């Protein structure tokens, strides 16, 4: 099979169904190294399922995902976790580990059984924690810090995995605007270091501001993809979300800005 190594991650014709419900209906994507991809779409359009298929958190019934030309479905778990880091939607955390220990968990694929994390691992963790601005929290307990801080800790854990690809499932959904910007800025810096970032996002305008490439899903199929100017048009947004938007051009480096309009006034 002539898998193309030029792409960081390639999704080839994947189909996923839960019971009789087809969640993904033949999705194909090619993603390049060092870019920021945003997956958009209404609730239930298959965004998270697509991301989970890429992370192998679930196995598609048909099709495959390739990383640098290698089939993800055939990789060993540890091998895969050295290639792809995935930040799942935040759930309630019940454990009380120190933040430093949570970040060090990211070294799991690199540390052999019967060993503990060494000086090198701690150095890597420190660097990641400084980058994601959580170094000052290292001795706090993970259940005592705020939601935004916790999200940054988990990003540090993903950084420590030293992968080329980082998947983020709604990384900013429950955060205030300051933390949203902070996390997307951090993701932007990661792309400058050559990482490929793929994030499921709900906020069209933040996606427009930060992403190099948007993928718009509806009912398990790709409706449009490309740079924000091409995807966030009045016509496409109306078709996908069923809401007539007002699109302002020329904001933030010419990125489109979507203004929803009250339904009665249409």
């Amino acid at each position, binding site marked *: 099979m002539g898998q193309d190594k030029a792409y960081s991650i390639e999704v080839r014709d994947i189909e996923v169904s839960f019971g009789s419900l087809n969640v993904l209906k033949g999705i194909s994507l090619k993603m390049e190294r060092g870019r920021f991809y945003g997956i958009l779409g209404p609730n239930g359009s298959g965004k998270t399922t697509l991301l989970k298929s890429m*992370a*192998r*958190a679930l196995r598609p019934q048909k099709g495959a995902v390739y990383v640098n030309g290698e089939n993800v479905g055939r990789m060993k*778990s*540890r*091998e*895969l*976790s*050295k290639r*792809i*880091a*995935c*930040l*799942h939607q935040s*759930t309630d*955390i*019940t*454990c*009380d*580990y*120190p933040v*430093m*220990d*949570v970040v*060090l*968990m*990211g070294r*799991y*694929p690199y540390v052999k*059984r*019967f060993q*503990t*994390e060494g000086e090198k691992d*701690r150095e890597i963790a420190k660097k990641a924690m400084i980058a994601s601005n959580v170094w000052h929290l*290292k*001795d706090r*307990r*993970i259940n005592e810090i705020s939601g935004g801080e916790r999200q940054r800790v*988990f990003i540090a*854990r993903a950084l420590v*995995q030293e992968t080329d690809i980082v998947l983020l499932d709604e990384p900013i959904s429950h955060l205030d605007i300051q933390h949203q910007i902070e996390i997307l800025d951090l993701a932007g810096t990661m792309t400058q270091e050559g990482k490929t970032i793929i994030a499921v996002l709900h906020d069209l305008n933040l996606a427009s501001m930060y992403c190099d490439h948007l993928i718009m899903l509806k009912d398990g199929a790709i409706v449009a993809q490309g740079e924000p100017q091409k995807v966030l048009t009045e016509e496409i947004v109306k078709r996908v979300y069923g809401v007539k938007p007002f699109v302002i051009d020329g904001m933030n480096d010419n990125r489109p800005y979507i203004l929803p309009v009250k339904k009665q006034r249409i």
Partner: protein
Amino acid sequence: MSFSDKKYRYRFALIFGGLLLVLLILTSVTVGAANISLLDTLRILIGRIPFLGGFVSGGEVSRTHELIVLNIRLPRVIAAAAIGIGLSAVGATYQGMFANPMADPYVLGVSAGAALGASIAIVMGADKIVGGFGLTTAAAFIFALLTVFIVFSIAKTGAKVSNTHLLLAGVAVSFFASSVMSVLMVLNRDKVANITYWMMGSIAFTSWKQVIILVPLVIAGTIAVCVFARELNIIAAGEDGARSLGVEVEKVKKVLLVICSVIVAACVAVSGVIGFVGLIIPHTVRLISGSDNRIVLPFSAIGGGIFLVLCDTISRIPTAEIPVGVLTSMFGAPYFISILIRSKKKVV
């Protein structure tokens, strides 16, 4: 402070705990109905150690006392330590694995399953024949594994196992096993005393034959469980996240469940149902150290050993011996209720 900053402190504390347990075992051997002094006990014990034996004159110690110490007290105290270690390590593992502080061998039905297997063996007269204990243990093993398998099959959805379903299935299967045991008792009135005493949880009649099966299984199982502490930590911080870190969550859970049911079966075959050890000891450890399983698992094991040896020692003090399972419940239930009340306050 992160785990590796304090690694050596924990190692030191663990060695100290181990020594405390050994000391407690030795002291416990001196307690009982027959009045044997500490000095005589030590003489008897040291006399049995090769090379050292020559230095002690064992002349004045009576043969009966020697038999009581070596063949009655020592095996039961060692069994108490091993069972405490095993049940507590299993409880800690379950709690980590299911992210549920109430999980323990009883909730999952493993104990009841093992008990049912052993009861069937007793009813069929296995305890009367030569090598009968081996048969009882084997029956407990088979039924413990069978219970895990049944509970797991009920709880399984696709390749994944949900915690809620697992716990509910465990409770249901546990009730079923207990009811079958009741039927067995009604139908075999002559064996009621045997089964009842054993259901209360007692190690009064433990023999060396049982100890040599029990101890290696518990020690090997406990060490095996501790090896998975890091995986347990990562799973506790989120299963999806654990998978993306390369932890094979389902496989780890399965391996741990098999190891745990081996430990539980070995313990239950010897002592019957001893409750609350697997619940209160890991809880106490967690209150002190936090929930890092690299600390919780080994310290729960040692703590469980210490706790059960203490309970067993106390159970021997009154003239009519109290089954140790009754005692652990008497201490354990109020403690457990106090944990519940405290956690309620935290939520409100």
